[in-house]
């Protein structure tokens, strides 16, 4: 056995060692099952996101990780230490997790400095002041240290909340819709800023949100949740381009579904023509399918084979998002460059240009 090697492999193992493990937990929310047998693993330094519509149970999962919600099956482990079991849990104040909330939850009667120092009450006076000063500096809050929360803007309050949560050096940072109370522009800006900061400091973080832009800005991995389960756990890129089921395809990004069926292992037939598949299809011939068409799959082409009428349009800067209706009555979404300008009621010609075919088996037979 050779020393350096062993050390290296040890180091690698510790890097990829899971910091948070949620193993098959179920939770009730107000007497109804809200989370079903949910598992997830977060490695040290990773930032993950739980994304889903309201009521999908994502906040309940977060509360269970923080220790505010009991679990009915499974277990939660932070740093190999079991913190939640069926009928027993480590109280939230002993878990070393930090939490950031939608409403920031700053203590209104304390100054920014006192808020940030709140979690450091066990440290001696001197080092507490030092830590707080450092944290304020890092967050660009030094000038506001003696202000009260209500004197700050939304973005500043957000930063104080983050500073307060990070000051005690938690093992794990939990964020519950942290950007929802900010306006659109600030939200994108803060999302990037927070993401950079967390990456830089190597903070392990779990965020829940219903907003896919927030999720994509922050999450290395995103778990899409529906009805108490994670339906896909993947990178933002894959969630958009390779959704593994109908729900994810529908929830992430824009798009419409076409009905069709398998013609050959490389082709599906749709009412708008035959579409080739880049990967061999696993279904037998004539299996009914649903085919996802993203707006960028529908291309403006004056010589295209499909004629459609514009039913609505939305200006998006460089591009316009059109809703079209074909002669057969099929609805399509299409992104055209702004200079191809059409009014509602105009007829346009398009063609389908699908790089990667996203197909699902149709659950019920087509009629």
């Amino acid at each position, binding site marked *: 056995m050779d020393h350096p090697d062993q050390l290296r492999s040890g180091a690698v193992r510790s890097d990829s060692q899971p910091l948070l493990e949620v193993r098959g937990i179920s939770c009730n929310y107000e007497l109804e099952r809200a989370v079903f047998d949910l598992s997830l693993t977060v490695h040290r330094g990773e930032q993950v996101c739980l994304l889903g519509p309201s009521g999908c149970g994502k906040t309940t999962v977060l509360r269970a990780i923080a220790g505010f919600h009991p679990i009915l099956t499974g277990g939660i482990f932070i740093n190999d*230490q079991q913190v939640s079991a069926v009928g027993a849990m480590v109280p*939230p*104040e*002993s878990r*070393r997790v930090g939490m950031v909330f939608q409403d920031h*939850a700053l*203590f209104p009667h304390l100054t920014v400095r006192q808020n940030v120092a709140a*979690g450091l009450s066990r440290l001696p006076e001197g080092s507490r002041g030092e830590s707080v000063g450092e944290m304020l500096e890092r967050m660009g809050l030094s000038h506001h240290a003696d202000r009260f929360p209500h004197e700050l803007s939304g973005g500043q309050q957000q930063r104080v909340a983050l500073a307060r949560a990070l000051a005690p050096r938690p093992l794990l940072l939990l964020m519950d819709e942290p950007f929802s109370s900010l306006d659109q522009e600030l939200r994108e800006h803060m999302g990037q800023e927070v993401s950079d900061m967390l990456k830089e400091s190597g903070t392990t973080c779990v965020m829940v949100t219903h907003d896919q832009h927030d999720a994509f800005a922050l999450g290395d991995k995103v778990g899409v949740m529906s009805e108490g389960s994670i339906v896909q756990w993947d990178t933002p890129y894959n969630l958009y381009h390779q959704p593994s089921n109908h729900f994810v395809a529908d929830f992430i990004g824009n798009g419409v579904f076409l009905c069709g069926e398998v013609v050959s292992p490389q082709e599906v037939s749709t009412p708008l023509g035959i579409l080739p598949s880049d990967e061999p299809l696993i279904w037998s011939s004539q299996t009914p399918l649903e085919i996802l068409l993203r707006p960028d799959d529908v291309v403006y082409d004056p010589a295209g084979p499909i004629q459609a009428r514009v039913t609505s349009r939305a200006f998006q800067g460089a591009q316009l998002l059109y809703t079209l209706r074909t002669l057969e009555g099929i609805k399509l979404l299409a992104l055209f460059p702004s200079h191809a300008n059409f009014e509602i009621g105009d007829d346009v010609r398009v063609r389908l240009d699908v790089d990667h075919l996203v197909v699902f088996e149709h659950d019920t037979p087509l009629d």
Partner: protein
Amino acid sequence: MIMATLVSPTVGAAVKLRRLNRLNRWTVGAVFAALLVFIPIGSVLFLSLGDSGDVWPHLIGTALPEYVGTTLLLLLGVGVSVFLTGVTTAWLVTMCRFPGRRIFEWLLLFPLAIPAYVMAYAYTDLLEYAGPVQSSLRALFGWQSARDYFFPPVRSLGGAIMFMGLVLYPYVYLLARSAFLEQSVSVLEVSRVLGKGPWQTFKTVSFPAARPAIVVGVSLALMETLNDYGTVDFFAVYTLTAGLIDVWLGMGSLAGGAQIASSMLVFVILLIFLERMSRRHQKVYQQASSRFKTLPTYSLKGWPSALAFGLCALPVIAGFVVPVLVLGQLSIVYFDRSWTPEFKSYALNSLTLSAGAALVTLLVALFIAYARRLRGGRVLRVATRAASLGYAVPGAVLAVGILIPFAIFDNALDALMRDWFGVSSGLLLSGTVAAVTFAYVVRFLAVAVGQVESSLEKISPSVDMAARTLGFRAGQTLIRYHLPLIRAGLLTAVMVVFVDCMKELPATLLLRPFNFETLATYVYRFASDEMLGEAALGSLTIVAVGLLPVAFLSRMISRSRQLYPSPSTGDA
């Protein structure tokens, strides 16, 4: 190595799984407190179901029908009176514009400061045969004696209805006013656009929507009416409360008193039912809005304006100005005879007893409210509900419910002590200040719990979670982060309970230690001896203290109006 660096020195070994019990310390404590408070209510309920012995036939054969009949008439009379006064004044100050409206908005609350019995004493002095009014009339018209003219008897059922109506209408006024204010502006505007006049709009839109709130107000006023002892005793109006205390103190029959108490529970339960039902409807009709919108008001000019002014001025003058002037004048005349060392010691008794009871009530309320915030749960909810019934139970009934279990406890303990140690423990609970304090806590807990809960509700639950994840336990979170935020609410709760304790008469009278007097019992004793002059200073003191919460409420009302018409966001 890795583990060692990751375990925080500050948390250390604390990372241990803790068993989750359905009932944690907070829940158990709160349920226990709630059950303790439920004891008197429960024991009256139990008595009413138990074997009545031979008291019932006697009571039914003699006085009970009269008690019940009189109580019904009194409730009916006061109900109609507070309804008419409260709704009329509330509608005028919210929907009409006339000179003085802004001032009347809070002045109309002032009669709330005067206990009904003080009102009765003041008006009796003013209107009785030897009083200034009848004397002046006689002098003016040259009448010689009572046979020469008719003057309505003051000390009568009619008088009781009138004076109680005058001090209790603010309950209806307050609730009706906020119900009118919270009504949808657009609905009112639609009604006017459709060509409906003020009366039509009131009848078809405003009143039906405000009705649940008005019923809640009336039922609260009726609970107070049922509770009253000072007035009905002074006027010799034989209601159930008067009968209960007469049977207990006069005939020395606690068992008889208990029987009347249990029959009073029927009224109590009906009133609670009425109130709870209406509160449920209230939630539907009134969309809670913290902002006051500009209501489409009717501008009054000329005669209607004078009439509106008069209608609002009348209850204020009759319900506050006149009695305060009478008491003030009497206090000055009788000052030397009233301002005695006894008076000061009674005042001190009132102060310490009420303050102590208010603090205990607040602590219990805080504990229950916080336990409910930490973990809801049906057990706790039911227990709190049961414990909160005290406000509806008349003080005299509570006294019965407290004395019986306390006496059983004292006797059992005494017997035990004699058997084991050969010493008598005497009366440990019954006939002590503890019993009176307990009665106050039971009766006023609901007010305090309501106040504390509504203060806590304004704090986002995420503040709790933030504090917990920052390393604070539930109790530390309450002390460090909640108490500073709800200070104002706690102060209001203490103040309101304190004042209610100061005014409380029947329970104090029945449960106080021998020879222990508070201002309320002292005033009652002098008044019973027809020494109204000597009672005036005490009465005036009670009114002055009673003004505290009224002034506070008034300030809130006038403040909320300052925000309008430019509503600000309620950040503070």
